[in-house]
């Protein structure tokens, strides 16, 4: 037996003896889902019957005609009660569910306007309103019929056109459409949960129990161990998903038959599509299995792995929910987005509209991501720092990320990567909630306050209270002339590239017109005074406040990583920080600029280089938007960047790179307090 099969056989045996996994894999789908769904259905039916069982108490006030009294009084489902108080009070105090206030039209014998008072937050009141509205409509029809009769006109005089619907959807298509919205999310979550606990148990659990060390001394390559474990996790995830899928659909088919009949719907399940859906679950299970295994092995305990995987779980929910929203068009772009593609393919399979080209893209890209995740997992298993924490040689030496965070917070000259990332995450959340509120309430002054109070001040406090060396962390060294010259050339080259990236993006991600207008209004000055204010607000302020956070704390804390890693990380985090509900398009250009600035700051060892680049980039946008001639030439969102900017960009980037690279290296500050 090959090594991976030996590992697989052992892992499968152990997993099948784990009560927790069995409960999640078998007991939940086979027992719990039908019970929950049927119980929900019964409760829903019970509630509906309860509501319908009693006649709704309603009242009529105002210029009520005898005919209206008669219609309401004799209508089944309504009980007319007198009210001795204000209509609103009567409804609020539950004396009645709804009240119709009738106001006769002056000069007419039978015309009137009717206002129905009800409580939109009460089911009985909503039902009372529905019934009362139907009674008033019936009364209105009677009045109309009487008028038409009096004129000797035919009864259909007021309704000359009759409209009727005929749906061409087959019952299984109706079933597919209904389930196609909710089933993808459920299936993704179930597959994910199927992989969740086995991955933790087989990776972090093994570390926690102290068996991984023993296993890694067997004459077996790490990749064979990972493969054996990964196949186990993926198999369990697929089996769990299949059991869940089968159980859920059978429950829908049989248990909910009563409800669909009660609602007058004919629903059948598209079983042929279900088989294909099951096959597409396999690459998804493979992706989750590999990804979770790679992450879980980096945790030192079961609990820590749960904490590490929970954000991944939450992130996966976002693309998995796409089918719920109407109007999401499934095209090539979405088909290669992890999880989103699979989720939307499930939906299209359920409604019988799957396209094989897209399906191939979905499965191919998911397999590609799975292969990447598997390589990540294999690298994690072969990494001694991951297996033993890179500490003093003891298995429980407390060198997990929490311990390192504590250590960094108290003793290092610069923050650890974890502490820096945690700080930036905290600041981003603060800025997202408080910063947006400040901007909405105070406008430009709010933006100014947010930048200084929510970015600059917290960064200084973090460095001060964390006991870090401000000069080493923020790189507060005066830059050389060569560094400044190089930075200047770099940003001259980088800004047009950012523009080009933004322009290319518009082919895939159209900019909402109102967003564009809003941004243009914000950056456009119509007087010299206004221009000076905008330059201070949008160029100088962010250059200082954002640079201390991103090229100060974040770069200072992550310099212990390899350069390409911390540069890419810095750009991505900087880009993500500039994301908002409407401006997803800013992510890539901003991330690019963030990477260029991060590289320049790291290479010149001076934050001021970054400040200069930031000021120049933002200032250029304000000036371009504010000078009419420049605005006409440069600010057309549909036009590509002028071609002559291509050599400018190339020249700027090349010359800037060479100049900045030639800045003499000085001693790099230590990243730990140990040195």
């Amino acid at each position, binding site marked *: *037996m090959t*090594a991976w099969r*030996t*590992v697989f056989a*052992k892992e499968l*045996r*152990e997993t099948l*003896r*784990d009560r927790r996994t069995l409960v999640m894999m078998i007991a939940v789908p086979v027992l719990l889902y039908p019970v929950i769904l049927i119980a929900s259905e019964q409760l829903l039916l019970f509630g509906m019957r309860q509501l319908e069982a009693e006649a709704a108490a309603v009242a009529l006030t105002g210029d009520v005609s005898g005919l209206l009294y008669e219609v309401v009084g004799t209508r089944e489902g309504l009980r007319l009660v007198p009210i001795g108080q204000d209509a609103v009070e009567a409804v609020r105090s539950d004396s009645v569910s709804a009240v119709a206030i009738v106001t006769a039209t002056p000069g007419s014998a039978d015309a009137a306007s009717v206002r129905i008072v009800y409580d939109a937050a009460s089911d009985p009141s909503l039902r009372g309103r529905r019934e009362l509205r139907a009674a008033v409509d019936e009364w209105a029809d009677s009045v109309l019929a009487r008028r038409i009769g009096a004129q000797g006109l035919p009864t259909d005089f007021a309704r000359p056109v009759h409209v009727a619907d005929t749906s061409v959807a087959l019952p299984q298509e109706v079933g597919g459409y209904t389930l196609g919205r909710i089933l993808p999310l459920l299936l993704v979550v179930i597959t994910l949960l199927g992989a969740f606990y086995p991955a933790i148990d087989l990776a972090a659990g093994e570390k926690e*129990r*102290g*068996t*991984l*060390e*023993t*296993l*890694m*001394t*067997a*004459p*077996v*390559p790490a990749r064979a161990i990972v493969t054996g474990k990964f196949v186990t996790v993926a198999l369990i995830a697929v089996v769990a998903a299949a059991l869940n899928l089968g159980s859920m659909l059978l429950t829908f088919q049989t248990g909910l038959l009563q409800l669909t009949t009660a609602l007058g719907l004919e629903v059948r399940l598209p079983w042929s599509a279900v088989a294909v859906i099951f096959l597409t679950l396999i690459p998804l299970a493979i992706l989750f299995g590999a990804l979770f295994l790679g992450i879980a092995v980096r945790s030192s305990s079961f609990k820590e792995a749960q904490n590490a995987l929970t954000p991944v779980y939450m992130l996966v929910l976002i693309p998995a929910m796409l089918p719920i929203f109407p109007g999401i068009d499934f095209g090539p772009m979405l088909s290669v987005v992890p999880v989103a593609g699979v989720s939307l393919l499930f939906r299209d399979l359920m409604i019988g509209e799957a396209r094989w080209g897209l399906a191939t893209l979905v499965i191919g890209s998911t397999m590609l991501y799975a292969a990447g995740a598997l390589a990540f997992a294999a690298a994690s298993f072969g990494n*001694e720092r991951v*297996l*033993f924490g*890179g*500490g*003093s*040689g*003891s*298995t429980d030496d407390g060198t997990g990320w929490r311990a390192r965070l504590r250590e960094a917070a108290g003793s290092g000259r610069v923050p650890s990567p974890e502490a820096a990332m945690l700080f930036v995450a905290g600041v981003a959340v603060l800025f997202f909630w408080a910063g947006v509120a400040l901007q909405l309430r105070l406008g430009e002054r709010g933006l100014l306050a947010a930048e200084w109070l929510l970015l600059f001040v917290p960064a200084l406090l973090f460095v001060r209270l964390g006991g870090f060396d401000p000069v080493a962390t923020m790189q507060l060294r005066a830059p050389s002339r060569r560094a400044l010259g190089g930075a200047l050339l770099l940003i001259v080259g980088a800004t047009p590239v950012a523009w080009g990236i933004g322009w290319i993006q518009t082919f895939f991600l159209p900019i909402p017109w109102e967003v564009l207008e809003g941004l243009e209004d914000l950056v456009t000055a119509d007087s010299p005074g206004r221009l000076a204010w905008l330059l201070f607000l949008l160029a100088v302020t962010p250059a200082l406040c954002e640079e201390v956070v991103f090229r100060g704390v974040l770069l200072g804390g992550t310099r212990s990583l390899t350069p390409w890693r911390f540069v890419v990380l810095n750009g991505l985090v900087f880009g993500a920080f500039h994301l908002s509900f409407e401006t997803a398009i800013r992510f890539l250009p901003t991330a690019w600029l963030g990477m260029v600035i991060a590289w320049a700051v790291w290479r010149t060892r001076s934050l001021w280089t970054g400040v200069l680049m930031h000021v120049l980039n933002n200032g250029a946008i304000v000036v371009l938007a504010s000078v009419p001639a420049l605005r006409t030439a440069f600010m057309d969102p549909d036009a590509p960047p002028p071609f002559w900017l291509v050599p400018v960009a190339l020249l700027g980037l090349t010359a800037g790179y060479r100049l900045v690279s030639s800045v003499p290296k000085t001693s790099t500050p*230590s*990243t*730990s307090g*140990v*040195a």
Partner: protein
Amino acid sequence: MIRFDGLGKTYGALVAVRDLTLEVRPGEVYALLGPNGAGKTTALRCLATLLSPTSGFASVGGADVVDEPLQVRARIAFLAASMGLYERLTARELIQYFGRLQGLEGSGLEERVDEMVALFEIGDFSARLCGRLSTGQRQRVSLARALVHDPPALILDEPTLGLDVLSGRTIYDFIERERSRGKAILFSTHQMEEVELLADRVGVLAEGRLVAEGTVPELIALTGAPSLTRAFLDLVVPVGAGAAP
């Protein structure tokens, strides 16, 4: 059989082991003695191919730990201090599993497992899940697991840690028996009596450095101390730190 040649291991700025050179010959028991954090576990993990040396070399039976890790692993029995077992495998299944990972299969595997079960007197509980075994029983299963492929070198990281006297006795007997079968045995410990009882030679590690090496009488003679404990303290406590006024 076991050889360290100028081996060093650092974690960033922290030097865990520096320039370690020693050799353990077949049929020899070598004790690595040192205080907590001296680098004993790191050195053994480098030898077991779990950690990569930052400098220098280590080998087992001529196989280099960096260039030929799989050959090294096939030649060693590694017993970690944690002595972790798979809780949901039976004792027999666990021994079989590691036998298979070592390349044993079929009747050869079963015969070897039977031998281990008999040798470590596991028969009574071989069908019981490891999670339900007592500490002493777990320790015997661990030893059987480590020895299932009959390797020529044994690496034991604090093998008696947390064991009572009777369970410790099993380890002593095991080491004596394997020495008589010509195995090279390297073990780390804090226990002076263990060293006096078992070790042919002793290496004293302090702050990652091998500060002394020799037989127990040689170490005592080297320091002029009345006992191994006192000699050990003299060797590992920095000069002046523990001196009387």
